[in-house]
């Protein structure tokens, strides 16, 4: 399964902020953590991570400093700020609302309206069979 572009774009900010909430990290580590969290299903151009990080920096959601990595290369480490944590909390709430609404739709839960004496339970498989 591949997530579509708009969804990736919308989820990138809260994902990055969420990862940084667990501790500071450099770009590559963030990319790997996203891959791990989404089982590699969120596919995107990883280069796009950097303009996003720079934007979050400008907005004051993250701060950054340069450090030297184990291989002796300069790397930039990002850390979340209080403002970023607040933004993350807000985004998470927004996502929870959407996600809860979606799962209510998907769950087989109590029948919403089935005037035909329970035949709705049977209608769906039949319909699927016809379509197949």
């Amino acid at each position, binding site marked *: 399964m591949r997530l579509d572009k708009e969804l990736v774009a919308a989820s990138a900010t809260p994902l990055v902020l969420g990862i940084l909430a667990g501790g500071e990290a*450099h*770009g*590559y580590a963030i*990319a*790997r953590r996203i891959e791990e969290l989404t089982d590699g299903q969120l596919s*995107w*151009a*990883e*280069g*796009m991570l*950097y*303009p996003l990080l*720079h*934007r979050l*920096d*400008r907005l*004051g959601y993250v*701060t*950054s*400093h*340069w450090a030297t*990595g184990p*291989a002796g*290369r*300069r*790397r*930039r480490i990002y850390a979340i700020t209080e403002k970023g944590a607040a933004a993350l909390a807000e985004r998470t709430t927004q996502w929870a609302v959407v996600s809860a609404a979606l799962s209510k739709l998907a769950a087989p839960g109590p029948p919403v309206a089935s005037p035909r004496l329970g035949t709705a339970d049977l209608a769906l498989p039949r319909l699927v069979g016809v379509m197949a």
Partner: protein
Amino acid sequence: MTQAQIDAEVARWRDYLGSHAELRGPDLDELEDHLREQVSGLRAAGLHDDEAFLIAVKRIGSIDAVSREFGREHSERLWAQLILGADPEQPGPGWRPLAVVLSLAAGAALSLAVPNNLAGTGGWIARNAALLLAPWLVGYFAWRRSLPRPARSGLLVAWAGFALVANLYPFAEANSEPGATEILLILHLPIVAWFGVGVAHAAGRWRCEQERMDFVRFTGEWVIYYALFALGGGVLLGLGAAAFQMLGVDAAPVIGQWILPAGIGGATVVAAWLVTAKQGVVENMAPVLAAVFTPLMALLLLTLLVGILAQAAGGRGTQVLILADRNILILFDLILVLVLGLLLYALSARDPHGPPGLGDWLTLTLLVIALVVDVLMLAAMLTRISQYGASPNKVVALGLNLLLLVNLAWSARLQSLFVRSRRTLTPMISWQMAYLPVFAVWAGLVVLVVPPLFGFR
């Protein structure tokens, strides 16, 4: 593929990245680090070197798309092209933009030259020059970027309000010379008008930090173009006057009455057009000048500081000459404005995420010296004011001095955090951009409130 081959491939990839104007050194470092880690990660997972390299490159994504995204975030790198650039989607007939610009320039030229021959008194022109010229510049940006209606009506109301103030305030004249409050209005109204132009330049989105920064950049380049025009125009007029003199014709009245004011007016629009249209020619000249003059300015202030201290140590104590001069505050306001300008333009072309360099240490040195000298001056001036009482000039100079002091003091703090790699430059940019309206409001207050406060003298 050996490690050396991979290094060569990575270097080639980096060179290609570097050919995109949107990407700067530190971005390349970040992306290269990402690529190399990706390669070693994939190799550790059992891939061959060349496979690892190919997949790593692919995962970073299309370079063009990535650099476009960088360009969108870092408008300082391509500001002129991005904001006002060649508009590749709107080719249009080639003569039309030129015709619009030339008619706006002609309007600006006439709006200064015609009253110059009608009004008779120079005072009216001096008070109204900014109000006469600003609409043409605003018109230029309104045409170029389409100004939304609320901004348009806001600017119109502000323009009318300031026009009423400039012409209805009963300024008192002393020996047919304009009084102090009138001169203050003449000096501050252009600043107010320039911020009005800024609203039009930002297409009404003046709250946006990046739009503000773009206007600061525009201002720097505009001033440079205008100075070049003034230089060229002066040479041309001088030669013309000399040539006509040889023919036995005295061209001086025509030049003084018509050509000079028309040139002063028309050049405002033409300079704005050149900054936005021909930005490739002298792009980002202001930051270069700032880089050159920052150390020189620091040296000048340091010499001044040593001079003051030497005089004070010379036993004359409070008799230090420079501190006794009444114009010292105005002089120091000008110096601080210059320091702020150097800081702003050093900032305007800089990558806010880059690591600090020598130039940033120099800027910090300049800020600290300027603050030390200014605190000395301020203390001296406050004593003077408490002894001799307030005058319009002293109050305005003192107010501006305090505004600049607050700005520069906080800037020095942010700059010191930056050079010690505690912060990026982003907070500094936000601070400066948030402070811009303070200057606008201050100039507005000087125009509106100070004259009645001091009885229009």
